[in-house]
């Protein structure tokens, strides 16, 4: 069989019978080509969409949850319902140390403040933050740096401002780094400017100042506005949220079943919804692509069947000259496989071009709809393998048909 595949005559026969019927060869190949083109195009586009979602969420640790103090709705241990729950800095430490699977706990404070610089002013959300925030909610710094431990330790009056703040408070092309801005009537020097991501999660925080500075300035004491908890990748964030809340309820003497005491926003859960949607889309893509592919292969089978019918007499002649049924079948199957393979390779090639085009049309810039639309080589090989095996199977049908009739009947055929 190997020898047969490397025999020049085999391919001469394939070439002859294909070039004899150029039209059917072309039409057949279009079927498969279209199938694999769609498969690759769709898969690539779906991947591009997924990548673009990932990029949007890339600034956030997706395995994270926000916990904000609320108001109790059940009386517990002598406390009336309606008690305000105020989270404290020590809560975060306890969660960090005692809840399984927690990676970071980031306490945060936020307030709205009037910010003034020279004659320009605006009201912005001012947040007191730790350097750790950068780990859970990556800040894209355009200039300067983010808050560091030194700022915290020394309660330095420094601020990292968003690009929006910069645009409102500064004239064009002025270097903001080192400039002073007034927040709540005290001066802060700007140490960094960051780009606001595409998606805002939680309350808007346009200006970050050191947590300790915030504590002092706004007289917060130990209280915090809310905390962000990120889980280690192998842990379920929903479970972490439950564990953390249960612990907080215990610390703050809240009824264990009181579900109003904390307001939480589980980013992990929301993200899972989107991931689920993407998975669904990928499944759909595969489904459509493979269905189209199968349709294409069936088209090949159909056309081969017609061809075999057309060539009944020729096959009869060949058999009269001593071709065994196996030799006839082998030839037809080789033809089918060759057709699917060539059409498939061509489909992969043009599919690649389509992806290149998609990338240049929709994949450029920071707000691109499709980011890095691509298909893995592995997928391509699997698709090719599926094609070849389907081609073989589908080639067997006309092959058996061709040899099922007696040679004399084949010869009588006109």
């Amino acid at each position, binding site marked *: 069989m190997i020898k047969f595949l490397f025999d*020049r005559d085999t391919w001469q026969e394939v070439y002859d019978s294909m070039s004899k019927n150029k039209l059917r060869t072309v039409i057949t190949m279009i079927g498969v080509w279209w199938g694999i083109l769609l498969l690759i195009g769709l898969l690539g586009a779906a991947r591009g969409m997924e990548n673009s979602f990932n990029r949007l969420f890339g600034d956030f640790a997706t395995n994270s949850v926000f916990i904000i103090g609320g108001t109790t709705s059940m009386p517990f241990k002598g406390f009336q319902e309606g008690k305000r729950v105020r989270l404290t800095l020590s809560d975060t430490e306890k969660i960090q140390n005692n809840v399984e699977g927690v990676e970071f706990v980031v306490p945060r404070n936020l307030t709205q403040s009037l910010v003034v610089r020279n004659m320009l002013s605006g009201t912005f959300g001012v947040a007191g933050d730790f350097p750790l925030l950068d780990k859970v909610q990556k800040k894209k710094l355009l200039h300067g740096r983010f808050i560091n431990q030194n700022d915290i330790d020394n309660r330095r009056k420094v601020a990292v401002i968003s690009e929006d703040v910069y645009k409102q408070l500064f004239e064009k092309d002025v270097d903001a780094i080192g400039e002073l801005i007034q927040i709540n009537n005290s001066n802060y020097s700007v140490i960094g400017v960051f780009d606001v991501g595409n998606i805002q999660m939680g309350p808007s925080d346009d200006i970050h100042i050191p947590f300790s500075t915030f504590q002092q300035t706004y007289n917060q004491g130990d209280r915090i506005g809310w905390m962000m908890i990120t889980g280690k990748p192998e842990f379920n964030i929903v479970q972490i949220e439950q564990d953390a809340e249960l612990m907080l309820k215990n610390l703050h003497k809240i009824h264990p079943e009181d579900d109003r005491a904390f307001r939480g926003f589980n980013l992990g859960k929301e993200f899972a919804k989107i991931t689920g949607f993407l998975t669904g889309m990928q499944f759909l893509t595969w489904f459509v692509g493979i269905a189209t592919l199968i349709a294409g292969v069936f088209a090949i089978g159909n056309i081969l069947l017609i061809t075999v019918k057309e060539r009944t007499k020729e096959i009869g002649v060949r058999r009269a*000259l001593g071709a065994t049924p196996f030799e006839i079948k082998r030839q037809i199957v080789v033809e089918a496989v060759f057709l699917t393979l060539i059409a498939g390779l061509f489909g992969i090639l043009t599919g690649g071009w389509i992806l290149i085009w998609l990338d240049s049309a929709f994949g450029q810039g920071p707000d691109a709809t499709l980011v890095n639309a691509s298909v893995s080589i592995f997928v391509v090989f699997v698709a090719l393998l599926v094609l070849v095996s389907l081609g073989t199977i589908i080639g067997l049908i006309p092959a058996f048909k061709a040899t099922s009739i007696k040679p004399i009947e084949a010869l009588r055929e006109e």
Partner: protein
Amino acid sequence: MLKINQLHKSYPIGDSSLHVLKGIDLEVEAGEMVAIMGSSGSGKSTLLNIIGMLDEADSGDYILDGVPIKNLNEKKAAIYRNKFLGFIFQSFNLINYKNALENVALPLYYQGLKRKERQEKGKFHLKKVGLLDWAHHLPSELSGGQKQRVAIARALAADPKLLLADEPTGALDTTTSYEIMEFLQQLNDEGKTILIVTHEEDIAEMCKRVVRLRDGVIMEDKKVEQVRASEYV
């Protein structure tokens, strides 16, 4: 060379069946040139097809060159056809997208010969039928007589023991027919055993023996004085 004993063959037609061959006994020696004659429906083509292993008899014995031909599967039949038999058809049955040389070399391909050998043998036989210059022409570029000569070269290529010709001149004009017959006579002179199915008297007269069939039985089987086709050409 060939021995047939009480050969029967019938074809089903709807619920009933048509008894085409009703007990044929025939013996052909090596080197004979036999014409099988009969009107259409007499069973002459069916007989030839059974001899050619393209069709199977219902009952009876058939021995070809000492080998009993019985219960053949398709694979075996194909090998026997390739080894023992050369076919010449009324409508030539050349493969229209292969040139003359490729057509002639086709049986050799199925014999498993190497390309070079096939080319040499093919050319040799094309030369024998006088068409070496046309080796690379497609059948559509050849005349009827040329096509039949290519077909004869193809039948000869595998060096068969027996040549079977089904109305070899049926699609040709008289002059060309005689040319073909002259060529077949030459082959017979060289020792080839040839069976020709025909319904033309003049063609039959150019053989050495005439077997007449009517309604599935042999009516007459006689040796004849061979008319040399060269006298007419």
